[in-house]
């Protein structure tokens, strides 16, 4: 990742290939995204991160603020001043945002099951649909042919009773691949901490924070002939997690059981300069929340079936056209709904890349969605790209994005809260300018990037007390704007590699319109839990097969009240990663050691959730 300078020139996806083997299931849409604000983590990088979850990877490398409800607890992300339901997480092109609450828990995605991660900052609803307002995270599997039979194992052990292991087997023939990965992880999370929020500031051990995760991923890819390829993926995962008490509370008996099953079938057809893709995904999810203290058990289930057809055409001068149709059927069940709820959404989308000059291109993407009996507003992305004029690249973009209300927003009902079936879609309109300069001198590379964004979020959904009942309304408007800077330096001397990468983000995200019931004091104030300053640096050095990496993350002050009268303190964490890899007779192994929070920082990611000080993880991965 630290030597990923070439990425920004990789404007052409692999769809330009004339061989069906290289046609990627998601490359078509990625052709129309900005490469300047995309962070790519490929299989090689992720192979040394097998024991980590997606939230940890994003915390280390994306320079974004990850909000975590306790160590190894539920995690979500906010990009460019947006909130957690504004970031789409797509697996092989399928949006995994839950139709019930719009959220994705990043701590439930083990890196061992993922081959590629692309982190795309900025909204792109015209390409990826509802929910991709602040950014999107793309998880993808690799299918490699002609690699024979191989297998991989990994095991890990960490502080606070953390054990994990996984194995994978992959059969790779010239026209067929099949792989199976299974994975298990558990932790006690019983770390000691000084509870500054309790009488006498006792040193205590975290309680009720245990979790178990078990996952299985099975994927196949079949080349039917020179024109056709078929992929299937099935991902089953089960998680059982206790929810720890907040520091000011004495105990917790809260627990969640989460189970998901995701299945995708892709068929791709290649002819000449065009390809045609059809995919169908079925997503099942169950969440059972319980709290013994108040005798509460709440069950929530959702089902989504997403069908998509996409046609990509490569025109003369490398112009590209994409048109597509998406049908998403969603069904939700909850103890807090009157009945099963469902809806059907049909979207048409199209993108065109016009490349009048070798180093100049323009993209336009459009999407129109029909939800049940209404059309959503037309969403679009317009962008201009100047690529590598003496090392300088520029991307300008105007985009309108949207998010449709979740089932909870629409249909939740109990004695204290009531959904609002008349909610409008959230929308955003924003402008972005991105600049990057790259310079390579002898054996060193240098890149500096600068992005500025300005976005207005309108009709934001917010639950407020209305006549004694909490109800969602559409009255909130948020203005997010800021700058992102990043810098990369890489140096290669014989067997030594050095690299330095840093991100810094300045984000103002202020409330401009509010609900009538809210205080006037919240206007023009920063959104809660959204740091104005955040960033990270990563320093890596490697000698032959030994890698040493130092990571420092810093998160600024985050307000916890809408009128900005209270806040969480800023914090900065340092981590060290040491990896050693060796190949012996076609067999490779990697030993990893990770030392987290080396400065022993006391911090809170979310209010009142204790986090551990220094802790360790060991891992071993073998490829046979």
């Amino acid at each position, binding site marked *: 990742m630290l030597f990923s300078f070439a990425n920004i020139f990789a404007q052409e996806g692999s769809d330009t290939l004339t061989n069906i083997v290289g046609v990627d299931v998601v490359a078509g849409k990625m052709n129309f995204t900005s490469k300047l604000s995309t962070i790519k983590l490929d299989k090689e990088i992720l192979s040394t991160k097998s024991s980590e979850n997606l939230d940890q990877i994003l915390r280390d490398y994306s320079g974004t603020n990850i909000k975590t409800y306790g160590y190894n607890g539920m995690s979500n992300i906010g990009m460019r001043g947006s909130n957690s339901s504004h970031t789409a997480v797509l697996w092989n092109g399928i949006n995994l945002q839950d139709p019930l609450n719009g959220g994705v828990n990043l701590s439930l995605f083990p890196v061992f099951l993922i081959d590629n991660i692309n982190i795309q900052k900025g909204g792109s609803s015209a390409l990826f649909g509802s929910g991709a307002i602040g950014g999107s995270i793309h998880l993808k599997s690799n299918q490699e042919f002609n690699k024979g039979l191989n297998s991989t194992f990994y095991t890990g052990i960490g502080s606070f009773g953390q054990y994990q292991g996984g194995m994978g087997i992959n059969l790779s023939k010239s026209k067929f691949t099949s792989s199976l990965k299974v994975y298990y992880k558990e932790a006690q999370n019983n770390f000691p901490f000084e509870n*500054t*929020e*309790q*009488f006498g*500031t006792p040193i205590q051990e975290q309680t009720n924070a245990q979790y178990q995760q078990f996952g299985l991923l099975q994927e196949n890819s079949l080349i039917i002939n020179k024109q056709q390829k078929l992929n299937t993926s099935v991902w089953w995962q089960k998680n059982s997690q206790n929810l720890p008490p*907040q*520091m*000011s*509370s*004495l*105990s917790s008996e809260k627990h969640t059981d989460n189970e998901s099953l995701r299945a995708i079938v892709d068929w791709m057809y290649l002819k000449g300069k065009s390809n045609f893709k059809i995919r169908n995904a079925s997503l099942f999810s169950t969440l059972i929340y319980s709290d013994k*203290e*108040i*005798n509460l058990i709440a069950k929530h289930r959702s089902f989504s079936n997403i069908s998509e057809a996409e046609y990509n055409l490569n025109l003369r001068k490398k112009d590209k056209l994409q048109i597509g149709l998406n049908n998403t059927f969603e069904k939700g069940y909850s103890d807090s709904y*009157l009945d099963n709820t469902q809806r059907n959404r049909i979207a048409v989308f199209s993108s065109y890349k016009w490349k009048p000059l070798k180093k100049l291109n323009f993209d336009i993407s459009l999407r129109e969605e029909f939800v049940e009996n209404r059309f959503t507003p037309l969403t679009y992305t317009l962008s201009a790209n100047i690529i590598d004029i003496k090392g300088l690249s520029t991307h300008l973009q105007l985009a309108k994005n949207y998010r449709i209300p979740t089932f909870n927003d629409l249909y939740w*009902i109990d*004695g*204290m809260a*009531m959904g609002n079936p008349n909610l409008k879609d959230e929308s955003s309109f924003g402008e972005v300018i991105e600049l990057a300069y790259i310079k390579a001198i002898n054996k060193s590379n240098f890149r500096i990037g600068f992005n500025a964004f300005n976005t207005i979020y309108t009709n934001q959904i917010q639950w*407020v*007390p*209305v*006549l*004694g*009942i909490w109800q969602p309304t559409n009255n909130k408007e948020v203005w997010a704007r800021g700058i992102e800077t990043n810098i990369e*330096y890489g*140096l290669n001397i014989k067997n030594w590699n*050095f690299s*330095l990468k*840093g991100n810094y983000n300045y984000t103002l995200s202020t409330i401009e319109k509010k609900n009538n*019931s*809210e*205080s006037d*004091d*919240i206007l023009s104030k920063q959104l*809660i839990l959204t740091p104005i300053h955040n960033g990270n*640096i990563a*320093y890596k050095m490697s000698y032959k097969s030994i890698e040493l990496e*130092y990571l*420092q993350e*810093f998160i600024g*002050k985050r307000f*916890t*009240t*809408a*009128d900005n*009268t*209270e*806040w969480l*303190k*800023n*914090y*900065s*964490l*340092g981590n060290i990663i040491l990896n050693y890899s060796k190949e012996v007779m076609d067999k490779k192994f990697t030993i990893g050691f990770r030392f987290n929070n080396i*400065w022993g*920082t006391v*911090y809170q990611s979310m*209010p*009142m959730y204790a986090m551990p000080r220094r802790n360790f993880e060991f891992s071993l991965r073998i490829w046979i």
Partner: protein
Amino acid sequence: MKKPIIILITLLSFWACEKDKPKEEELPKDKIAYYISNEGAYGYGNASLSLYYPEDKKLINKAFKNTNNRSIGDVLQSTYIYNGKLFMMVNASSKVEVAKAESIEELGVISNLSLPRYMVAENNKGYISSWGNGGQIKIIDTQNLTIIDSVETGTGPEKLLISDDKLIVCNGGGFTEDSTISIIDINTNQLIKNEVIGDIPMDIMEVDNQIWVLCKGKILYDDAWNIIGHSASKLVLLNSDFEKEQEYILFNEQHPSHFALSEDKKTIFIGGGYGFNGIYSFDLNSKTLNTNPISNESFYGLSTAEGLIYGFLSPDFSSSGKMIIMDESGNVKSRLVVGVGPNGMGF
């Protein structure tokens, strides 16, 4: 190359050590104080205590945090002062924090109770209504701060009152509903009975040896959660056997949660709670409700003291609320910014 990195890391580490010290304000001594409970936003652990000194008209916010350098917890439901001790019922943290009433210095914490709400005390015994375990009164020793007994009540016990040797508890229903009051013998710590008096009993007071209960009433829904009607809110007067002697309908379609007594003990002011607008007065002599409110604001909490009405505005639970001080005619004397989600005060 390495030097700038080390400098950068050092700077970042120093930056991380920056302290946000609260502004401390010295608490007046030997002054009457009102103890305002600010619930905070549920799940954020930012409940706070505000102190108001009526003699000097002085307000001090975040008094507990400034004194003890930590937060109270999640959802400060109520405060109660007894024998120089301040008891803070921290609902969502399932604990009672105890501090010196004058200096707010922490004294201890009472645990092993679930979802505490309100407290009364007598003879060094405190009675705390708690929603957990189906509804209980936790009886505590107010000197050594331990739980000495539990008595089961109806669902969701709220405000309570000691009258002679009886404890009367309003069972407000908690997360569901109830229509009873519990009568407990405080000599034996035994439940005598649960008496049905009206939908959602929330508040209770004794005026001239007469016990009044505010029943909030409720909204009636069909199976599809459509509103099909209301059960009226009412004032219920109890007889000496703690049965309903008389009831006075207040509102057919509005549901106030609190009431408070005027200085001359001739008027009950009614208001407060989610979705209820205004403060109304009920004349105890004529037993009639004045349908013209003395205030039109939507208060969340309501208290009276020394001839003044204290209304608490909690518009959104995500920003600071306000305490509105009025005379008994509703004329506003001052509007003061307190903590997030103020709901009432103890004194």
